């Protein structure tokens, strides 16, 4: 059997997985806690719109276009959430569908959507060494934000009005959180794929929530599950010649059901 680390593309993919999966997992703890799964899903789908608008504006760097649009879209969703009295999930759905439709309409012009279809499934092997530092920087930002804002975020998620009365910058903290999700999702989407990015965000935290008894365990389990399914998924996809994103998500899914069963019976 081959030594899989003999190849540079596998080394890069491995390092990227080591960065991406725990980061998405960590953010996922709060996404799950705040019931924002749908929000991040909408964000993932808007990657296509980002690329479309980037193409229209003649931006050559698709990643940059995605990140910029992702941030704007996330902030817009947040504004809507704060202002509206209407049902949030309906509004997110409307925004997500419209933005997805705009993206598809632009990208499919001239029948050229096929060239973007790899974005739907993602390709973890295409990570280049030069892209790793960007990922690492995003990871550092996540950790710093987490160190400062975890308590506030938790407080806000439990009782926003009370948090406000304690002079917490509710809007700022929430906006930063949304921006952080947007940046990480957009950076990893080329490798995980539009269709599955949300699963990586949600599944580890959702599984951990099934069996964790306190916040510390919740975070620890999320990290473990995210790392484990990421690494194992990469190995298995390498040896079986299957796209990496789906394999990782299958493992995370199995772990979810195992923990769900435990929470029902244990």
């Amino acid at each position, binding site marked *: 059997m081959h030594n899989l680390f003999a190849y540079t593309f596998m080394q890069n993919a491995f390092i990227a997985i080591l960065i991406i999966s725990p980061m998405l997992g960590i953010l996922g703890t709060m996404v799950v806690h705040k019931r924002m799964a749908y929000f991040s899903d909408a964000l993932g789908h808007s990657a296509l719109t980002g690329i479309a608008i980037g193409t229209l504006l003649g931006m050559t760097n698709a990643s940059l276009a995605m990140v910029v649009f992702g941030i704007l879209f996330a902030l817009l969703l947040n504004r809507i959430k704060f202002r509206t009295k209407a049902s949030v999930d309906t509004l997110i759905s409307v925004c997500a569908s419209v933005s997805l439709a705009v993206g598809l309409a632009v990208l499919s012009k001239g029948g050229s959507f096929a060239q973007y279809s790899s974005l739907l499934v993602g390709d973890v092997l295409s990570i*280049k060494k030069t892209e790793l530092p960007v990922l690492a920087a995003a990871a550092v930002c996540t950790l710093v934000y987490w160190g400062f804002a975890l308590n506030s975020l938790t407080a806000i998620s439990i009782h926003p009005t009370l948090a406000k009365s304690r002079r917490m910058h509710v809007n700022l903290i929430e906006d930063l959180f949304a921006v952080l999700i947007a940046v990480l999702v957009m950076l990893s989407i080329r490798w995980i794929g539009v269709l599955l990015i949300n699963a990586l965000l949600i599944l580890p935290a959702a599984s951990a929530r099934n069996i964790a008894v306190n916040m510390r365990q919740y975070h620890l389990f999320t990290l473990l599950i995210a790392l484990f399914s990421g690494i194992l998924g990469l190995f298995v996809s390498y040896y*079986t010649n299957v796209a990496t994103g789906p394999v990782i998500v299958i493992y995370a899914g199995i772990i979810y059901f195992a923990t769900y069963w435990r929470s029902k019976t244990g």
Partner: protein
Amino acid sequence: MNNLKYLITVFICLTVLSAAIIYLYANDNVTTLSKEDTLVVASFYPVYVAAENLVDGVDGITLKNLSEPQTGCLHDYVLTPEDMKLLSDADVFVINGGGIEAFLSEVAEAYPALTVVDAGINIEKASESDENGHAHDHEDEENAHYWMSIPLYEQQIEAMRDGLCAYFSTDKAVSQKDGSNRSPDDHTTNIATQITDNASAYLSALQDLQSRQADIAEKLAGQKVILFHEAYEYVAEDYGLEVAYLLDLDEERQVSAGEIADVMQAIEENGVSLILAEEQYGKELGDLVSEETGADVIYLDTIVRGGEADHPDAYLTRMQNNIDLLANYAAKNKP
């Protein structure tokens, strides 16, 4: 921390399960490569079948094809781990050229030492000098389906022959294999001679094919056609057909109602009675247009896909089929 123990148990079970899956899968897919051989990898089928003819019967060369997509063209193809492994062991990578191998830059970056033989190199040069004066308006990539034209395919064979011979007559071929710095020995010179002989034989078979094509072309020249795939631009060129409308159908290509209307209009205005389409992606639209306008649709083989197990003459026979189809049409529609 009972839950942690539970989680770790789950992890262990999954790991064991995965190990079993990998073991079973890996045992199913053992590829045997002789270390001594020079490994030549072709980028996709038309290149593979050409290379197959060139290295036919030559000792010391193993030829492999990339796993290649099962649908569509190569434009949006991403390399699988299997391909990357194959390329990391490869000595020579033979490509079609013309930008159809979109993954080429990725390969060059990962394996800078790999010798790349570009079969389209002379054709590219020619088309560039043709375009002199025009601002390069490559809106998309250029049409790289060179193999659909027999003369251009012959040029590809020549470029491939020259590239392979150049490889075997440099030090690289020898020193890469045994680590020494010997100059080319009898063995590699011998390989180059064999490849040249093979190329001559294949080229003469292609010349025959070309002359058969020329007979039919005489009868069809000047006719107006509609194409449902850009690969047929080269067919139209070979036969002297005049392209009234090109609709490049491909996988996942959504055709808008406006485009179909354009096709119908082009048929009417130009009095087109012949449409060239591809079976896999053009069938539905081809049948529809044919029914509506009475134009004949001929489904030509684009020879873009094939297996490693196919006969080395596959290009010749499949191209002959295309010629026969057009010959039938010519016979049926005698003026």
